[in-house]
């Protein structure tokens, strides 16, 4: 059932995926969509995009150490999960199988047994420990600000768009580098852009640099979440939430609002574009110059 649906979906709309990168377009130009569909269907997450895709099962590719830690923790815990699942189902099936009025007319009545009681006490208390220790280690390392960040970006949620402020380069209280980021309406999408994920102004950040993201809101609760970066930070009006990230590779990362914030909750995505430090510098200075000129004129 799943496979049939999956194949159908991919066959009818190979373009639905988060194929915003030129990579996918070159694939299409090669006229080999069929092969790609099969491959994509086999490996589910073959598209090199940092966005959600149809029928995705696992996490998106990690771009920060934090996300890598989250994925590793997930796999760690999954090991115990499967262990317990197999063991418990074996006991259950075995009990059901043998509890039969013909095969075992007189059921065994074990009231207590020291060995099994010790075992079933010790093991269930050890397993949570093995889960808890890496979990807490990850949890606290996420909170820690290890080194001084190089850049502070303020992400301010509004109903229903986002404002980003780069204020490290300000010389007065006038905001010199501030922009709004709106989603691109469905009708204006270009070929290859993802529906409900694309915005007009992306957040440009340098890769391999410690960033401090200050998340806040101007009206109601919002959330700034980018799965590939392992970030999900609630935006609370009147409060500045800090999260620090280090993007390890250049790329475009997609995220969505993750806190029900009203009618257009689904239409305020987040797009983070990680570029090299040099490109970031020129980008910022290019944006700064026209804006400061505007201020000077006004």
């Amino acid at each position, binding site marked *: 059932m799943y496979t049939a649906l999956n194949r159908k979906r991919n066959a009818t709309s190979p373009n639905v995926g988060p194929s915003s990168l030129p990579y996918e377009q070159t694939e299409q130009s090669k006229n080999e969509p069929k092969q790609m569909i099969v491959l994509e269907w086999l490996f589910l997450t073959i598209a090199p995009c940092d966005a959600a895709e149809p029928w995705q099962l696992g996490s998106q590719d990690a771009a920060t*150490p934090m996300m*890598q*830690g989250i994925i590793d923790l997930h796999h760690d815990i999954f090991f115990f999960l499967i262990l317990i699942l197999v063991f418990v189902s074996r006991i259950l099936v075995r009990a059901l199988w043998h509890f039969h009025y013909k095969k075992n007319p007189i059921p065994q009545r074990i009231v207590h047994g020291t060995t099994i009681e010790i075992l079933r006490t010790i093991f269930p208390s050890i397993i949570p420990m093995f889960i808890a220790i890496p979990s807490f*280690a990850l949890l606290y*390392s996420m*909170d*820690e*600000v*290890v*080194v*001084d*960040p*190089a*850049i*502070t970006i*303020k992400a*301010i949620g509004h109903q229903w768009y986002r404002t980003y*402020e780069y*204020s*490290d*380069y*300000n010389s007065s*209280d006038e*905001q010199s580098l*501030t922009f709004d980021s709106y989603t691109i309406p469905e009708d204006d999408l270009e070929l290859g852009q993802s529906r409900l994920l694309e915005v007009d102004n992306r957040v440009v950040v*340098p890769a*391999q*640099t*410690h960033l*401090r993201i*200050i998340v*806040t809101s*101007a009206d109601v609760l919002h959330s700034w979440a980018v799965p590939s970066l392992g970030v999900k*930070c609630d935006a609370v009006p*009147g*409060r*500045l*939430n*800090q*999260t620090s990230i*280090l993007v*390890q590779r250049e790329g475009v990362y997609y995220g969505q609002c993750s806190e029900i914030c009203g009618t257009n909750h689904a239409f305020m995505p987040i797009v983070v574009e990680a570029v090299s*430090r*040099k490109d*970031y*510098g*020129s980008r*910022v*200075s290019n944006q*700064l110059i026209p804006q400061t000129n505007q201020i000077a004129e006004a």
Partner: protein
Amino acid sequence: MAESATAKSPSLSEQYLLKGKEEKLESIKPVEETPIENPVSASEEEVAPKTEETPVSVESSEGAPAAAAEESSEASDATAVESSEAPTDADEGVSGAAPAANEGSSESTEEEKSGDEEAAEETPEIKLETAPADFRFPTTNQSRHCFTRYIEYHRCVAAKGEGAPECDKFAKYYRSLCPGEWIDRWNEQRENGTFPGPL
């Protein structure tokens, strides 16, 4: 590492906190090792005087050797001959701030340095620096951090006079941390005399 650190006896007691955390995280994720050193060296080269945490009381000359000690001790970790380096570092430290700083930066690996310098050359006006992590505000909630920096700036201006150069960094900090809307509101409140903070 501990050996050379004790030999130097870093003058700043604050240096401590972040250093300890850095080691801890490095041990968890070796992946981050290179990026961690990057900003340290960058901040040291570009804004050596600005790296210290505490506002007015700490002199800038104290900050430089402390940062240098941190870096050189990191570098000595990598090399096997730790004992031969430690005394030279200590001598440098005694002789003065400037040579110690030079020593520290020259020991950082070549590619990092060249990368930073390249970035600095390409875009002279864009410096990658912002308000440092403050050990008074280690939590996720940074509202008070922003508020405190705003107050610190205006107290500094009140004490040193308008346009005093030593207040500039507080201005930078609060502009980095506070949303523009908040700053506008507070400025308005100060003009009206209704600002709630201790100015």
